[in-house]
Structures are given as structure tokens and as C-alpha cells.
């Protein structure tokens, strides 16, 4: 492969998951006119697929002719080097074998400490833990999120609608935000009740994390005192959250 890649995404294996990821990425790329696509906080330009079977590549090429391929075994470090893994932004190890994906995760982390690795596994408890240990930034389990989603849709359809509207709908102004209380904030030393979030800003306090704690307190009592570096999780309109954020900085 002659083309040089930079800040790209590598997809290892061209199975059903990869095909779906490609559709997602393409839908972002189609929307952009500029040279670079910006998704979320990331500037990304292109992606390439490492696949060993020319049959799978041909099948995909019939549908999407302009994908960059690297024919080879993704569990081979040399192949990863050829895919410019040292300059890559991220990698999806989505081969059919869980062991191969674990191997790629470890190899990718070794070759590029900054790379973002998003892996998948059917077995969250065993393989999932190993993937994290091997250097994955995030591990997704189709069974887990699929099962949870089915129950959410069947057992609490309205709550699910509400969350979807908030998380996915680009037009919605509702948001969940985590606000870290700055040092010297006027809020410090006051109770949640005195901070009057619902009354003054229309914000609901759904959780709070005291500085140094690793766990959230959900539905915290209104008598809890706010101190600096505490995290307050609020739900509310975007502009109200911004207003409150501004307020927290005032001395």
C-alpha cells in the first residue's frame, strides 16, 4: 500500500460489525464537504480495512467501491505497521475470533500508546476484562446492550423515549451535564437546598459525587453541603446549564 495515512481509523476484519461501522462512518463522511470530517471532538479524515479474505473484500467492494483495503492478517504486527498504526487515531478490532481481537488490542496499544481502541466481545466477564487489561479504551458487548435495550423498549418505553430524545436528538435542548464545582465558587459551603438549582435555573439534581469519592450519590438529600471539586450531575436545558456553570465560577 502506497497511500500514507494519518489520524485515521483502522478496522480489523470485514464481518457484519465492520460493515455496520463502515455504514456509520460513511454517513458522517457523506455529510462533510470539507477535507476533514469532525465527529464529536475528533477530526478524522479516512479509514482503512484490514482483511485477509479477498472474497469478503470483493463482496464489500460491489456495494462500496471506494474503501481502502489492506490485504493481510491483522494479528500480524507488520501488517499493522503497514496500516500506519503509529499515526492512527483509533482502531476497531472486530475479527470473528475473540482471541485475535485481544491480541490486536494488546499489539495496537504497544505500537501506539495514544491510539483509541474500541473493542467488542460476547463475553463481558472474561474477555471483556482481558480487553481492558490489554489496553482497550472501551469495550462494547452486543448481548449486553441489545438485551438491555429490548427490555427498556418493552418495559419502559416512555422513559426510553425521553432519554433518546435527550441523548440522540440534535435539536433537543435538554441535556445531562456533570459540573465540577471550582475552587472559591460562591456555592462552596452552601447546601443543595440553598443553591436553589430547581428554582433559580430549572435544573434537576440527579446525582452528586463528593470530591475524592469514586461513587455517585443518586437523588442526593437537599441538606448535602457543596464543597469545591465536588461533581454535581444536573438535568436541564442547555442554556440553563450554561448559566449555572457561569454562576459556579463567580466568587
Amino acid at each position, binding site marked *: 500500500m502506497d497511500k500514507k495515512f494519518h489520524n485515521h*481509523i483502522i478496522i480489523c476484519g470485514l464481518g*457484519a*460489525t465492520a460493515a*455496520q*461501522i463502515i455504514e*456509520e*462512518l460513511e454517513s458522517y463522511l457523506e455529510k462533510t464537504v470539507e477535507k476533514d470530517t469532525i*465527529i*464529536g*471532538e*475528533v477530526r*478524522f479524515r479516512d479509514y482503512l480495512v484490514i482483511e485477509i479474505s479477498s472474497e469478503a473484500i470483493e463482496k464489500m467492494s460491489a456495494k462500496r467501491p471506494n474503501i481502502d483495503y489492506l490485504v493481510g492478517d491483522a494479528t500480524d504486527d507488520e501488517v499493522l505497521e503497514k496500516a500506519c498504526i503509529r499515526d492512527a487515531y*483509533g482502531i*476497531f478490532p472486530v475479527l470473528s475470533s475473540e482471541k485475535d481481537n485481544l491480541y490486536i488490542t494488546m499489539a495496537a496499544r504497544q505500537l501506539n500508546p495514544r491510539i*483509541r481502541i*474500541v473493542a*467488542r466481545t*460476547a463475553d463481558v466477564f472474561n474477555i471483556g476484562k482481558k480487553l481492558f487489561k490489554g489496553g482497550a*479504551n*472501551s469495550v*462494547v*458487548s*452486543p*448481548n*449486553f*446492550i*441489545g*438485551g*438491555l*435495550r*429490548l*427490555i*427498556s*423498549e*418493552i*418495559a*419502559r*418505553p*416512555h*422513559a426510553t*423515549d*425521553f*432519554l433518546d*430524545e435527550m*441523548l440522540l436528538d440534535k435539536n433537543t435542548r*435538554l441535556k*445531562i451535564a*456533570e459540573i465540577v464545582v471550582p475552587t472559591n465558587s460562591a456555592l462552596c459551603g452552601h447546601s443543595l437546598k440553598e443553591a436553589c438549582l*430547581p428554582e433559580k435555573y*430549572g435544573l*434537576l439534581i*440527579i*446525582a452528586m459525587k463528593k470530591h475524592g469519592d469514586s*461513587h*455517585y450519590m*443518586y*437523588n442526593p438529600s437537599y441538606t448535602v453541603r457543596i464543597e469545591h471539586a465536588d461533581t454535581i450531575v444536573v*438535568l*436541564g*436545558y442547555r442554556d440553563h446549564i450554561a448559566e449555572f456553570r457561569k454562576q459556579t465560577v463567580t466568587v
Partner: protein
Amino acid sequence: MNILIRKRITKALLLILLVFTIGTIGFHFLLDGLTFIDSLYLTVVTLATVGYGDFSPHTNMPSGGNPYIIKFFAIFIILFGMSALLYGIGVMTEYIVSGEILRERRRKRIQTLISALGGHYIICGGGETSVYMMQELEKTARPFVVIEKSEERIQELLEQFENLLYIRGDATHDEVIQQAGLEQSVGVIAALSDEKDNLFIVMSLNQKKKDSGSQFRIGAKVTHLEKMAPKLRSAGADYVISPEYISSRRMVSEMFRPSVTTFLDRMLKDDRAVMRFEEVTIAPGSALSEKTLKDIRIPEKTGLVIVAVRKGGAGAFIYNPGAEQKIEEGDVLVTMGAMHKINALRKLSQGK
């Protein structure tokens, strides 16, 4: 195998072996002209109550032998041997039958529990995705019944879910799904590994729903989204999910927007407390109906905050509803908090 039964089978086999040994040795030394093989043969023929008569204490009585000793020995062998054999047969029969009886008793107990259910969920197929569904249902205190074909898989599930309510059978058979309390259920999920089976289940469920006027929602798991999802939807599925599809989307989101779902994700995975965004629907005659939020005093009664109200269960959400918001029957309240508090609110929302 039950350890008690195994012990008894061993005991029976030892007793039988012992009686044959004593018989063989005894006849060999007490009678005349019998080899060990002949003696064993005589023992077997005696205990089998066959008695060919080619050898017997009478024909092979040694000259000068004491006939009483030989007769008492024969009586002992017959009585002791018969008892040992009968005992052995009994133990084996018990072993074969008891598994069946236990299974039958368990099935009856579960059937009684299921028939007492109402407002429960039915999961067709006990595969890997179903395990996570069952975990979520258990965590959020929702009763459920799983239908699974393989006894082996049921045993695996029982290891994870001690009080699992299950039906062993093929969910595509009407009477099997009926046994799961279909008419009283509130949701059924078709999650078999075979896509056509799921389609078949959804179609027959939809028919039943129309016939009986039941209100359960129908969900389906799908693998080949493009091919199967439209069919499942037109067959009557309220919701179709492809774990592959949503996990791929999720992977892309995790790649580019790691911070978006963090809080909710951590909340879902928190093992110390079960916190959820949930909903309750105001039933006719509920204590909460026809009042304003100020009058209902939900935060004081349950410790929960109402995040949003959806009037009549449709249309836009009224976010952070004010104290003057009127609540009527059919309204849906969206709330967030600990499951036991939400269940307390759900009780209030039900009719009297």
C-alpha cells in the same frame, strides 16, 4: 447422580457379588464333583429360580455328607440371594424414576407460581442476549418467565438465576407460550436464535393479542436487520432490536464521543445501587389522579423527583413539571431514582 442413590447402588452390587461368591465357594466344597464354574452355574440357576436339575444338592450329595448342612446352606443362599437381587432391582428403578419425579414436581411447582403471576414478562429463548434481559428484569424487580427448549441450557440458567421461572419447551408452539401466562403478561420478547422462529412467534402473538384483547407489548431480537426487521414489524412487533446494529453504532459513538453517555452508563453498571430512569402510568382510580403535583407530594412520599410528564402517554414531554401541573389518568410520569422507590410510586399510580 444423587450421592445417596450412588451409595445404595454400590451396596446392592457388593451384596450380589458377595452372595455369588459364597454360593460358588460353598457349593464347590460342600458338594461332590463340582468345579468352580459348575458351582457358579448352580448358584445362578438356583437364584434365578430356574432349577434345570442337571446339578442339585441331591444329585451331587457327597457320600457321608451331612444333608442338613447342605440344605441349610441352600436355604441361606436362596433367601439372602433373592433379597440382594430384589434390593438391587429396587435401587435401580428408583434411580431411573426419581429423576423424572423430581423434574415433574419442579415443573408443577413452577407452573403454580406462573399461574399466580400477572404483569410479568415472557422471554422466548434463553440465549446469551436473554441472560442480560433477565438480569435487567431481576434488577428492576420485574417478574419474568423464560421459555427454553434445552434442559442443559436451563441447568446453566438455574446456576445464574436461582429462582428462575422457566418452561421447558418450544416457544413456537402455542400451548407452550400459553403456559407462560401469556394473557396476564405485559410484554413478550422473541429472542430465539432462528430468525424465522421469531417471525412465527411474533405473528401468532399478534393474532392472540387481537383475539383475546390482551395488552402485552411484543419485542423481537433480530440478526439480519435489513431483511428481517420490516417483516417482524409488519407481523406486529412493537419493537425490533439488532444487538449487532446498535453495538456497532455504539462503537462508533465510543470512538468519537466518549463523554456523551458516561454518566448514564456508569449508573446502569453501578452494582451498589439499582438506579434507573423509569416511568409510571396513572391508572384509572389511582390516588394520584385528578390532582396537581403540589397536592400529590411525590418527593415527600417517595423521595423521587418527577423529571417529565407525558400527557395521555403520547406527544411531547413536559420537562421539570411545575407544582401546578395537573395529573390525570393515562398520564405518564418519568422519574429517576432507586428501584424500590419507583416501585412504591408505581403502587400509588395503580387503581384501587
